[in-house]
């Protein structure tokens, strides 16, 4: 007698604790072995790009918050940079410094969520809450600065919506010294935990050429071992003034480009962000943050593409202007969307439990994937 076995189709999501929003994965599984993964997108599509065409340039800014809602500062900044480039606006030094500081704080906050949810998916719930506890410091700094904790609408075309709070510098310094010491706690509790390493090392190995072919960016690309970071390789704003390293995956616990490497790159990037903040915080010049904001935003005809290094990778804005007060076309190159495409390659031949670990290590935000 021969036994007949069948492959099973498992629908992971859109309602599932570990798909980080409303991603739906169609898994074809043989027992616990994953044969194929097919992501289905679009559950969170809000027509951002079409909406933007119906609004004036400055009205688009709050909508950019909602793309990558864990790194709203970066989204604001990328858009503002694009329009500023189109109009040829030079923003004051003070604005540049504040933008760098809030963006780096945002990078830390975003990585904290990424690492925490990756850990929680693997079953370690305590590091998740420790990271959220530390993230709270950053959110309260942002709350003082612009009144919002998540969707800031802070970085405007040509300036900022508010000047910083009088306590800003003091609070940021406190946070930097606090978090420099606390980051070790994360390493002790999670990074070098034997079970965590077992779960992530040699899992979801992303070879460098595959990463490049798929256009991956951010920690997903750097985890595969190439130090490509727009802050250094295509410097925008004033990043060329700061001294920082670009952590890359070295395969310390397994092969280069595995889940652990992507995880570890994020941990080390948080340290580098702290370094940048330390260098910037004492040199914020005096001045008016709103002096360069144009009265009426009406860029000349033309196209522009700007890209910045968001926590999840290369965030690009492509804007076509037809000389009106509304953009003719806004296109977002969303890093999460591009990075997500590699998921199918990574998951093949792994177990169901690994899909969760791999998805967590790629770190997607569905607001940005679906826009």
């Amino acid at each position, binding site marked *: 007698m021969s036994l007949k076995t069948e492959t099973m189709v498992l629908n992971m999501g859109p309602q599932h604790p570990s798909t980080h929003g409303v991603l739906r994965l169609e898994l074809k599984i043989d027992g616990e072995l994953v044969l194929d993964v097919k992501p289905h997108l679009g559950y969170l599509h809000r027509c951002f790009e079409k909406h933007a065409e119906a609004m004036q340039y400055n009205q688009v800014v709050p909508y950019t918050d909602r793309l990558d809602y864990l790194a709203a500062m970066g989204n604001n900044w990328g858009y503002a940079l694009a329009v500023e480039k189109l109009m040829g606006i030079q923003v004051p030094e003070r604005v540049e410094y504040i933008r760098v500081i809030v963006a780096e704080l945002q990078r830390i906050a975003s990585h904290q969520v990424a690492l925490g949810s990756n850990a929680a998916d693997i079953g370690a719930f305590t590091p998740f809450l420790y990271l959220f506890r530390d993230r709270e410091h950053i959110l309260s700094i942002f709350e003082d600065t612009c009144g919002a904790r998540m969707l800031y609408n802070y970085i405007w075309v040509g300036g900022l919506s508010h000047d910083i709070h009088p306590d800003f510098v003091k609070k940021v310094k406190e946070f930097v010294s606090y978090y420099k010491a606390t980051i070790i706690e994360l390493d002790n509790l999670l990074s070098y935990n034997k*079970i965590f390493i077992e779960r992530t090392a040699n899992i979801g190995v992303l070879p460098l050429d595959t990463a490049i072919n798929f256009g991956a960016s951010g920690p997903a690309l750097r985890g595969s071992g190439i130090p490509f970071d727009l802050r250094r390789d295509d410097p925008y704003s004033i990043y060329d003034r700061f001294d920082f390293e670009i952590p890359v995956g070295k395969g310390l616990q397994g092969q280069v480009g595995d889940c652990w490497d992507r995880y570890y790159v994020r941990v080390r990037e948080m340290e580098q962000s702290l370094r940048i903040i330390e260098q910037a915080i004492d040199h914020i010049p005096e001045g008016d943050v709103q002096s360069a904001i144009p009265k009426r935003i009406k860029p000349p005809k033309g196209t522009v593409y700007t890209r910045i290094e968001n926590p999840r990778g290369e965030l690009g804005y492509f804007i076509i202007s037809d000389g009106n007060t509304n953009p003719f076309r806004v296109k977002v190159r969303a890093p999460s969307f591009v990075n997500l495409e590699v998921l199918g390659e990574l998951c093949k031949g792994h177990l169901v439990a690994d899909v969760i670990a791999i998805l967590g290590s790629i770190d997607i935000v569905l607001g940005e994937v679906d826009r």
Partner: protein
Amino acid sequence: MYQFIYDLTGNVIISTLVTAVFPLVNVLIVALIGVYLERKISAWIQDRVGPNRVGPFGLFQTVADFIKMMQKEDATPTDIDGKLYNLAPVLVFTGCFAAYAAIPFSSQLIGSEVEVGIFFILAVSSFTVAGILMAGWSSNNKYALLGAMRSAAQIVSYEIPTALVVLSMVMLMGTLSLTKISEMQTAYFWNWNILGGATLGLSKFLLIPFMIVGFIIIFISTLAEVNRTPFDIPEAESELVAGYFTEYCGMKWAMFMLAEYGNMFAVSAIVSILFFGGYHSPFGYLGNSLGINWLIPYEQAFWFVAKGWFFILVQMWLRWTLPRLRVDQLMSLCWKYLIPYAVVNLVVIGIISLL
């Protein structure tokens, strides 16, 4: 225990009833306190406050939860296998609850003094697997099915190292009765099995390292048997939603929960009986030194419960510290490490006991 109550009340009906209800009450109390402690302890570990609204220090949180569970609508999915679906939680709960009948809380306080106590407990707690498989199969849900398959594989595998360690202890003690095993480790803590047992001599000191190995093996494998982190793979929240009880709600779900906490105490009790003197006090009895004989059983119950809760606290501590293993890693831990070590341990303990 029947005799004890009978001596107290002199009434057959009351003593029969009390003896019969005793295990159930125990399970409920353990679950009530266990759920509260789990929340409070996880909160302390994670730098949170934990329940603090219902009653002083949130003490009645579990009671409130229990009332909520009872009021819930019993929503069932379509196309389920109704009989199995309804029977599964009962079976899982029975497996846990029946084990309590044979656990000696003190020399008097024992539901039923079964001569083959440890064997009985191992046997009835295997009920759980059947219940879990039934729950997973009948729910008509792929996550539940995956969870049930994982769970069956896990529990069946981990019963082997548990049984091997129990076997080595039974071989050493020469009895299957839990009361007798406890009685052999009487008086002071240096008579406990983890420190080589009560008989003084060369074998006592030779036994100590192997006892410690045995304790570690049985602690790990019982942790896996009750599906606690790092072995909570069957219910792996982030992968399988809730594993085999994904589709359950209300009281049926609560029964799975009760069984989990009940089992936690049951396995802790077995570990403390086999290795840590059961209900015996580590420092002798107040009742003995004061000359109040009736005090001794109460003291014994106190020590037993304290030891059981100590191991539960360790289980909770592990749960909130460690990530979860993957299903193949879990299996290789059992088959490649625990079982070979348990077998070697069994042989060595056998040789030493011949000395």
